[in-house]
């Protein structure tokens, strides 16, 4: 334990909701007291909160990651099922995937355990996106198109529209990197049709659809995406370029 009470300043009484709010605003130190196990009875929520505080501590140290791992492992080993246990699986997977080096296999194990034990959970759904990244990343750099296609066909699909949208965008990024523009366009269009992307990310997606569709000679699709972009994002700095692209596409029409 590293001074839970002494670091807390914002909350008078432990209040996990306040703690989560502080963590959501990147203020791990202000959240510490809210998950203090000694002030009131300890709970799965508090355990998860303490693990999140350790991961958010500044500066980040391996010891803090170890402390978080210890708390999360204790949480997943408890017989009682809870939403917090699902989140603990997710964080353990993320620790292996992004905090540690070369532990992708262990990360995949946690992602799969989460998806199997809590298939309806929002974080479990997102684990499908992370698993897709792991599997594509494991392919050799000279992998042929057929193997990539087969790997993508075998990937577990998320069920929520928002996660499915992310899933398609991740696949599109991988395919664009390989220069498989036509297949990438299918995934970009799928993400666009789900209409889950908002704000600047939507602006980027619309331009991507327009640009890739132009390159694979699907001018109508390109024009439609560019038109949406111009209408929805009139002050975006790319507007001039997009309008020029539209003009060229219009001129090339038979």
């Amino acid at each position, binding site marked *: 334990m590293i001074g839970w009470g002494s670091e807390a300043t914002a909350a008078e009484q432990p209040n996990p909701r306040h703690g989560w709010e502080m963590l959501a605003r*990147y203020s791990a130190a202000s959240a510490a007291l809210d998950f203090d196990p000694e002030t009131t009875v300890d709970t799965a929520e508090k355990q*998860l*909160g303490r693990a999140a505080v350790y991961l958010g501590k*500044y500066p980040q140290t391996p010891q803090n990651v170890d402390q978080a791992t210890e708390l999360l492992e204790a949480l997943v080993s408890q017989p009682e099922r809870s939403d917090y246990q699902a989140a603990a699986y997710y964080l353990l997977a993320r620790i292996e995937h992004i905090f540690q080096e070369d532990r992708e296999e262990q990360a995949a194990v946690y992602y799969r355990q989460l998806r199997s034990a809590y298939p309806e959970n929002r974080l479990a759904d997102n684990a499908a996106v992370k698993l897709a990244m792991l599997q594509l990343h494991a392919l050799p750099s000279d992998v042929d198109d057929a193997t990539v296609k087969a790997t993508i066909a075998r990937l577990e699909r998320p069920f929520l529209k928002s*996660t499915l949208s992310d899933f398609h965008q991740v696949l599109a990024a991988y395919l664009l990197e390989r220069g498989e523009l036509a297949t990438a366009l299918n995934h970009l269009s799928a993400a666009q049709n789900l209409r889950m992307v908002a*704000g600047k990310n939507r602006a980027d997606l619309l331009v991507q659809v327009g640009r890739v569709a132009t390159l694979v000679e699907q001018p109508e699709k390109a024009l439609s995406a560019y038109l949406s972009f111009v209408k929805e994002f009139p002050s975006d700095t790319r507007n001039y370029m997009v309008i*020029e692209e539209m003009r060229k596409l219009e001129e090339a029409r038979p």
Partner: protein
Amino acid sequence: MKVQFGYGLIVVATIGALLMTRKNYVATTTQPGTVTIRVAHFTLDPQFRSFLTKAGEAYEKIHPEVRIKQMDVPRQVYPQWQRTQIIGEMAPEIMQFAYFNSGVEDMVMHRFTVLDSWVEKPNPYRDDDQTKGMAWRDTFLDGLNSRDAYNDKLRAYFGIPLIMGGYRFFYNEKMSRERLGGEEEWNFQQFKGLVTRLNDPSVAAGDLRPVMPMSTSNYSSYSWFKMLFGSVTQSLLFSLDRNYDLQIAGRDSALGFLEGRWNYHTEEVQAGLRLMRESSQLMNPGFLQLQKPDGIMEFAQNRSFGVGGAHVDLTYLEELARFEVKEASFPVPDQTHPDYGRYVLGPVSELAGSSSLTLGVLRSPLQEQAVDFLQFLTGSEMVALLREETGWRVSVGDLKQESKLNLKTGYPDVMYDVINTRGNIMAFRQNAYRLHERDGGVEIFAEKMDQEAPAEIRTWVKSQTTTLRRTLRQQEMSIVASWALGLSQEGTGSKNISLDGFLEVNNRQEAEYRGILRFMMRNGHSQ
């Protein structure tokens, strides 16, 4: 007698220092029953300091329990000063973000207040019909989309900008009238001819001092080079665009360089370099060594016709110059230019999309009051005062201001920066003189850059993967927190929009991170 005078001087100096110390102490000490909001910044222009003083006094009138204390720190020492203040827990309540302060992202996340809950609500100090009732965020010209205001890696608002960025060409109106027949706009080929026209004895009215078309300083030349280089490298906006989203960042150019998409012998880059060398003949020698004030003085003393600078420089120029200062588009080649015209796809954009002079609030018991002061600064009355005091293009929406400026839309002006000042800035700085010196030239410079840039770019890309990985790690606690906060909504049918948005950014950034790792492996630059 001399000794007595010396002692007297010491006594007077000691008393003076004590009085100054006392004055400073009083100024920085909160009176009982009041709180002090300290505003630290490095914008030392007298007009801005005067604005902030007047704004502070106006705020104190309506909030008698609050004192506003301005702390202006020279730009050169600001990064170190800012870091020391923050780490030593002595930081003022409000601080200007210093984009040039390396490692600032870490400081922002851990020490500055997330402003999301305020920016979504109306600014109580807006009372004009145009923006009344609008979310504070939407009252800004760029919707708070600048790098300092909104951190898209962390999906949070951290700063409030006061002015818009962007560069302009300023010129001497009297000289234009007397020697150029009152011309107001020039393309590059016309501008080149100004050396002769400005110095023609028949129009110089007996003034035989030589006049250069552009003033001599590293700052003025940078703003012009940025536009010149940007005018002939527009096709690279497409060929280096790895994500197919028509946005080029340093990572695109760095990876593009390592895989051979471009180098300093690429046709468009060579055209940009030739233009830079050619344009340097329109300034006095030594411009790379001379600082911004040197160039401004040269302009103010009628020794150069024009000067490049930021929008905000206009006020300063007007104060120094004894002639009317007018602004225009930078003289760059257009499609009619016999050599460079074939590289020009269209105009270069003058609508620098993002704002600057951004202030953030440090986490402290006074943060609510500090945010309130920022709302006051960007309220109707203070925005008008800021414009009046400084003449700057303010960050808060004003259609009248925008239409008066008449800025050109066009292709983004980013290529000079992403090609020369991101992953290979050391090589560029060390070799820039080779491009301009008498015995140098485009080929000598390009040869040297192609030799020295790869190693620096490789190191830079590796540091980018480290940064991306750190950002992904930082996001995890906030993602789980957003998920936990959404638990109470589950079963009610409402969506956790905050979590969805956060996961989307996290997944996109992780895809980019993995993509760069694969690139480095594939191209033999593995970690």
